């Protein structure tokens, strides 16, 4: 017998619905804000990759810098998210949220410097 996806008290809903509700209820606004930014970066990367595959790779350096800017920014933002997440407090005892944000900013500025240098 499969385990029940949702508690019996609430109306029976799909697993996705439950996940979404849980995320809405239990995630802080900060993390939601970060997640929105991550989704934006992911969509931007997907659009560029699709353009590269379907239309042209011609200024290849432009593709590389455009795509890697989204990927790099995604990675930096994801790191920020894991460091400021209150649930990971034990993991990052020495890193305060302010320190994490400063790291994120420096990393991003360096990334954008390289991206625009390479964009052509």
């Amino acid at each position: 017998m499969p385990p029940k996806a949702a508690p019996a008290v609430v109306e029976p809903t799909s697993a996705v619905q439950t996940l979404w509700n849980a995320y809405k209820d239990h995630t802080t606004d900060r993390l939601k804000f970060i997640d929105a930014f991550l989704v934006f970066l992911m969509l931007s990367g997907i659009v560029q990759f699709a353009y590269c595959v379907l239309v042209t790779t011609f200024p290849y350096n432009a593709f590389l810098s455009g795509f890697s800017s989204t990927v790099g920014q995604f990675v930096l933002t994801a790191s920020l998210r894991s460091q400021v997440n209150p649930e990971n407090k034990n993991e990052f005892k020495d890193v305060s949220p302010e320190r994490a944000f400063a790291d994120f900013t420096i990393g991003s500025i360096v990334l954008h410097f390289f991206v625009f240098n390479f964009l052509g």
Partner: protein
Amino acid sequence: MLSFYTFALFFLSLAGLLHAKSSDGDSVLVVVEEAQQKEFTLFFDGLREQGYELTFRGPKDEKPAVVEHDVPAFSHIIILASESKNFAKDITPQALVALLSGGSNLLIALSQKQTPMTSLAAEFSLILPPPNTPLVSFFPERKDSPSVIPIAAPASSLILSPKMSPIWFSGVAHALGSNPLLVPILNAPAESFAADSEGGADALVDATEKGGEGLWAGSQLSVVTGFQAVGGARVAWVGGTDMFSDKFMKKEVSKGVQSGNAKFARDLTAWTFQESLVLRIDSTTHHLVNSTTPLEQYTNNDNIVYTAGISRFNPKTSTWEPYSGIKDMQLEFTMLDPHIRTALPAVPGSPGKYSVTFRAPDRHGVFKFVINYKRKGWTHLHSSTTVAVVPPRHDGYPRFLSAAWPYYAGAISTSVGFFIFSAAWLAGGSRENKKGKAKAQ
């Protein structure tokens, strides 16, 4: 005083050039036995009429010297002493080859006998039949000896003038090796063959028994052959001296028709002494399209214009005249191999100018513009100009391409997004704290 003399010499030589008929000078040394000089008076008079200065010398005489102070004293040398087995020190085969490399032109008559000239002929890829086997033909039927043969002039020839009467010939024929510098001028008739002058048709019988082996026959044999050395000097090999003799020049081919020998001698010497079919490259330039100054280096994919000016020597006026008649010249843009090989056509309306526009290859390296025009009979044209082809400079690439806008937009939006995110994060810090405090309360 010395400088005055050199000046005088300079102007004298200039004046000499103005009157020269040949593009190569007009002094001719004729090496001939003194006793035989009278046999060729018509030939020599014809040369004098053309403006050549003839100097005579026996094959064993020491003077006048062929080379004085390491400079050739004559522009052209005619060797009619074909029977001579011994030559003076400065007319040996080695000396003649050295002269040829230095730019002197030679006209050499061969004979049936083994002489230094027959061994020299082998060096020029002429293959001579065994000694004492002159060319013999029994056609057309005639009263003369079978070894005196009328040879019809070729229907179309660059060197010989058209509609020439048949040419009387007596002497040896030769087969041609595979040397590309050879220029066949007059071939033996199809019915002719090489045989003992007395034996006649016996040679044919012998050869038939051997299945044709060892028979020198047919129109593949040549009786007069030119050779143009790499340096541009020309040599004419003639199978026998008789074709230049007064006797053959006056001899009628048929009733009332003068033989073509005089005209043939004229055309042959005109070619050999570099009067006819002489070309030169006057100038070559290259530049970008929409520009006129030549660059030392070009960039990948540049559109380059290459122009060459070519002149042909006109013996009538002794001047170089622009010549647009070359139809099959090519330009190569080479780096070891030709990366581009394209036609180099004449520009209509501007005589002597040949021009082509082409796109430089998408390779960088040291390239050469090469014209390498080698046609039988004509002077070889060769020109090579080295230029560098470099990749674009870092700021030489095209920028802000329309195809790249999605990538630009992606990069810019990421940066803008980062900026807004950071601003909102910093601004939201206090609000979050208040919220947290509110929640705590």
